[in-house]
């Protein structure tokens, strides 16, 4: 080695160390896929069925050998893993699309493995997945807005629960589900306002207020549920469900039609809100201000943005979206309020926000993953899968753990998150 004097020796120190986390996570999944679905896979046929209930099947069923499919999937996953090793070695970024593609492959392998010797009803799986996703997606959208403005919204759980409760209660009393929907949304935003008052105005730690607000909402709704609703279901908790609206023509498209265009108004609103929130955050002046408040409140204040007022309204108005998520839980699904029916989905929504790195579109994708795995669990139990449903139900949480722990790389939160802004 003849190092010349020109070569700066400090150069080496600047080189980023090779990040092995992603390739290592990939190879674990590739090995699981290859051996479970391929080597040890069942050698029976699996039928991927595109038929929907009520509409004639247009696409022919796809029949493949489950084990052969497992080998193909495993091979492809190894190929992607090799690619990520190369990317990691050359210190290049592993794009989100590689992760998505890899996940999809694993998913297809899993479907083939569970459905071996039977059918994989694609439309049924997707429809159910969307139904399960709606509250989580809406919660995640509200969470993303709040966090972008610098407020950690742990209270999404409470907003979902309150929205569900209010929608069921008001729906029963007024007999009008549209009024119930708006009531649910407003109740969600009131909870948001409560969080905002304490965290923005009184500077109480946002996580603490959030947790306490959740306790409070759980208490109030459970109390009214047990002291009024269970006493007289007909009078207080019998709202019915929002009707499914079939969109003409579009709903005739095979697979996509029955999945996307024969849904309740809450689901359509969810899709609209995903677009709305994304555009709002990235394409409008309001969104720029909102993000500025979350990233650098002092700078935002200097240019004349009222930081605390912005935060208050962002949290309060995003509560409308989380409240709608609650509406989807009660009158948008089971038609009635069940005690603590949000069952942690607000926390999951928050995890989706982090998983999606504070981007509403990515957070939505993460929420769909949760919805899909939930539906997958339901189907796998019916199909008599070899793995117990408890383990299938565990998948999204393990995936989130892996993701938070480095699979998707270190996530960078908005800089001023959970930091009260005090004008000095």
């Amino acid at each position: 080695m003849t190092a010349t004097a020109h070569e700066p020796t400090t150069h080496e120190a600047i080189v980023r160390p090779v990040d092995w986390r992603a390739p290592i996570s990939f190879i674990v999944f590739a090995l699981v896929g290859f051996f479970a679905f391929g080597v040890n896979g069942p050698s029976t046929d699996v039928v991927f069925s595109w038929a929907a209930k009520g509409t004639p099947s247009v696409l022919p069923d796809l029949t493949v050998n489950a084990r052969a499919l497992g080998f193909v999937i495993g091979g492809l996953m190894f190929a992607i893993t090799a690619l990520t090793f190369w990317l990691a070695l050359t210190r290049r970024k592993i794009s989100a699309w590689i992760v998505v593609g890899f996940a999809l492959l694993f998913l297809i392998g899993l479907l083939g493995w569970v459905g071996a010797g039977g059918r994989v009803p694609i439309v049924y799986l997707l429809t159910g997945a969307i139904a399960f996703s709606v509250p989580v997606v809406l919660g995640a959208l509200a969470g993303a807005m709040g966090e972008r403005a610098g407020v950690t919204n742990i209270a999404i759980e409470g907003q979902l629960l309150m929205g569900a409760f209010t929608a069921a209660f008001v729906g029963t009393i007024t007999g009008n589900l549209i009024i119930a929907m708006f009531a649910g949304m407003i109740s969600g935003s009131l909870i948001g306002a409560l969080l905002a008052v304490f965290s923005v105005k009184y500077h109480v730690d946002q996580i603490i207020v959030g947790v306490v607000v959740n306790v409070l909402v759980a208490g109030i709704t459970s109390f009214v549920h047990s002291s009024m609703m269970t006493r007289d279901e007909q009078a207080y908790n019998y709202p019915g469900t929002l009707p499914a609206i079939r969109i003409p023509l579009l709903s005739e498209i095979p697979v996509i039609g029955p999945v996307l265009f024969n849904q309740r108004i809450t689901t359509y609103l969810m899709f609209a809100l995903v677009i709305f929130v994304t555009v709002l955050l990235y394409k409008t002046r309001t969104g720029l201000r909102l993000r500025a408040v979350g990233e650098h409140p002092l700078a935002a204040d200097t240019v004349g943005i009222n930081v605390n007022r912005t935060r208050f309204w962002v949290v309060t108005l995003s509560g409308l979206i989380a409240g709608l998520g609650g509406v989807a839980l009660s009158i948008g699904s089971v038609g009635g309020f069940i005690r603590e029916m949000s069952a942690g989905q607000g926390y999951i929504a928050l995890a989706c926000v982090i998983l999606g790195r504070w981007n509403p579109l990515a957070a939505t994708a993460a929420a769909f993953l949760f919805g899909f795995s939930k539906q997958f669990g339901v189907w796998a139990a019916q199909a008599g899968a070899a793995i117990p449903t408890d383990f299938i139900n565990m998948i999204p949480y393990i995936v989130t753990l892996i993701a938070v722990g480095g699979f998707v790389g270190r996530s960078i939160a908005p800089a001023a998150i959970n930091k009260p802004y005090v004008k000095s």
Partner: protein
Amino acid sequence: MTETTKAPAEPRETGTLQLALREIFGASFTRTVLAIVIGFVVGAVLIIITNEEFLASVGYFFQRPSDALGAAWNAVYTGYSSLFTGSIFNSSADTFGAAIRPFTETLRFAAPLILAGLGIALSFKVGLFNIGGLGQMLVAIAGASWVSFAVPMPTALHMLVAMAVGVLAAMVWGGIVGLLKAATGAHEVIVTIMMNYIALYAVSYAMRAGFLHSPDAGTNPKTPPPLETAQYPALLGDSYRLHLGFIVAVLGVVLYWWLMERSSLGFRLRAVGENPSAAATSGMKVSTLYIITMALSAMFVGFAGVNQVLGGSVGLTASADSGIGFDAITVALLGGGNAIGIFFAGLLFGAMKAGGPAMQIAGVSPEVLVVVQGVIVLFIAAPPLVRAIFRLPKSVENGPIAQKFSRTKKGGE
């Protein structure tokens, strides 16, 4: 660069949490009492507005207001007096022994709340937010339960081994959270929530079909009952259900006090809580201390889990934590992070659990107590609000958090 990517946590965030907690933990006695009063007043309002007789008499309130007021008073009196009878002293009992039985029940219910509250408070003190009480308790329940029914041993030894296994399981489960935070910077709130669900499903499976399953339960998730050799002995004879668990809780309080106030480890933990950057500068291994913190926090929570197993003589289901994992957060906040405070906060919440069934019998839904708890902690957590409502003077020492923030700002952020 290696150093920055491996930096354990964002100091800014732990810093603000710590400031907020210092404010909450510095709550004066007056403020705590006032928060409790507000809590019960809000609870009373809820009881009134859902009371059938009251709702019926509101319609003609202006003709005969006494009806509505009487109904309101009756509803609240029935509710709260039955809470008292069910948790403190039953004056209608024949003997004194029977009359104080409710209080022993309060102590019994308080034990796991105190233990879990100590665990959560410990994590708060170090600036970490452990919401993983549920998971840590379940793992402890699994460990202790397995030893208690599957591994026969002599009397006292069996109990101790079951305790040790349960607590160790919880410490490992909690330690993983600390490890993930230290190694990858993953936020402990998300990690603990995810670990809760993983524990819930794993333990449910073990109870349904795995090593914890009781053959008598068919396909239901349930464990066999613990062997008698492992059960906590009764403290006051067989006519009371109070057991050794309460003594364990008292010992836990002492241990927590010694650990946090007297030991050198406690000093380091508090130093990290006060200011992680300063602690790191002075040579403390902050990431290691995070792992230790989570393991210790889970240790106390684990004792609460063990209490659920050995404190009874029946098999358990996956809901055996009875919400204590989450209640512990409110206990820790109300208790102000110090051992004695948590002890009394645990007693208060234990009384609410013990008195619940009596309220139910009296026709008032005990869920109202959850609201009471929530309101109490909300007001403890919001000192300026309580001060504003009761026109309390600003105390300099526990000044509003706003001052502290502006002070740190000027101090050179």
